[in-house]
């Protein structure tokens, strides 16, 4: 079957996207444009995107619980996360790059920006991964559950709930998305400024993973989560000329 990527991109429903300015998150105040964003038509350069990313960016890194196949495991709750990358029509986005990164089980990032954290590093935790979706848009990775951490140096301090950063390319420039995945039932979800910047509950629900049924878990050593990611883009029925 020929592969037809989306060619239509409706404007985002503002209610299901975060507000650009977030009270209490001071960096949003000085880094967002003061003038209104400008409407533009979608042309070829917006509805296309890189198809050769996997040759530029190494993939196949889907076990973040250790540095090598036989290496010692990072500390923390071993988890498996799986799901599908879909477009708005519910059709799979195939062979597409997904990047992910998150804090270790103690709530510390492997990043120079987090050098001031008193939480310990974990030498066995690689901190990030990158993989390709399969022909049904599926992805799956193993890692340790990230810890919560305080956001310091803010007028309004808050605690970030455990979350995983996800960067997806979809099938073109218009479907590029960086988002965060949260864990179901965490009480810190209720007070997180990032998650709650999305006004509509349907949008917020998209960012929270589902606990997998135990009987569906292929591996009994881990706790499982399911999380579908929906990128923008719709397919339109071709019009007969």
């Amino acid at each position, binding site marked *: 079957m020929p*592969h037809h990527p989306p*060619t239509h991109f409706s404007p985002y429903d503002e209610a*299901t*996207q*975060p*507000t*650009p300015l977030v009270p209490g998150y001071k*960096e*949003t*105040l*000085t*880094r*967002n*444009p*003061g*003038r209104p*964003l*400008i*409407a*533009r*038509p*979608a*042309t*070829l*350069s917006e*509805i*296309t*995107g*890189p*198809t050769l*990313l996997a*040759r*530029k960016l*190494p993939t196949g890194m889907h076990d973040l619980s250790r540095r090598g196949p036989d290496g010692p495991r990072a500390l923390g709750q071993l988890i498996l996360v799986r799901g599908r990358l*879909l477009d708005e*029509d*519910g059709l799979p986005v195939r062979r597409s790059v997904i*990047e992910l990164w998150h804090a270790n089980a103690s709530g510390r*990032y492997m*990043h120079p*920006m987090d050098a001031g954290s008193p939480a310990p590093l974990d030498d066995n935790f690689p901190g*990030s991964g*990158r993989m390709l979706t399969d022909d049904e848009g599926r992805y799956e990775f193993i890692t340790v559950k990230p810890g919560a951490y305080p956001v310091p140096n803010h007028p309004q301090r808050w605690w970030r709930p455990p979350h995983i*950063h996800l960067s997806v390319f979809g099938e073109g*420039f218009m479907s*590029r*998305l*960086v*988002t*965060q995945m949260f864990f179901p039932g965490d009480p810190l979800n209720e007070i997180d400024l*990032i*998650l709650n910047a*999305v006004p509509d509950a349907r949008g*917020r629900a*998209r*960012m929270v993973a589902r606990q997998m049924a135990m009987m569906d878990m292929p591996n009994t050593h881990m706790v499982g989560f399911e999380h579908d*990611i*929906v*990128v*923008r883009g719709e397919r339109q029925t071709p019009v007969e000329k």
Partner: protein
Amino acid sequence: MARLVPTPSATVGPFFPPHYFGEGDHDLTYIDDPAKRARGRRIHIAGHVYEANRVPRWNVIMELWQADAGGRFNHPNDPRAKEADPHFMGWGRRWTRNDGFYDFVTIVPGAYLDPLTGKMRAPHINLSLMGSGLMRRLTTTLFFPDQAGNAADPVYAAVADPAARARLLLQPATLEGAPADAAGYRLDIVLQGEDETPFFIE
């Protein structure tokens, strides 16, 4: 069929993995073999990114996407994809240094007749910016100076204010550390302020 709600965007935050930036990721002129280069006039684009009050903004993730020298995209949505330059990556990524500096190596993209709008697209480069404090990415489009086709380009023309439009034009420049065989262009990106870069609705 009811459409699915797209997953909301969230900030990249300050901790985007530094090791995601490979050696050639800011060079759009090759894919995985630097010996096999894209056709076209090589250019070096550089500048600084500023937040409000002209404060250099470091740790911004910048991504480019553009057509090859013939105005084609190696993507199934381009009817001319089969003619696209097989060595052209078209995509690149860079992060801004402590002083807000960024740079890319690419080629001048070709103009093309856009099948969606029926209009000519002047040579242009799509840019995304992501970073801490940006809940959604910002997108804009860079154009080349002295291109007669700019005025009729449907994206360039969508920016009504001539002063704002001018801030989308790359400026010829001699740049330090530029590849010897590449023509230099400068463009500063101002996220907020009097001389703010125009950004587009996604």
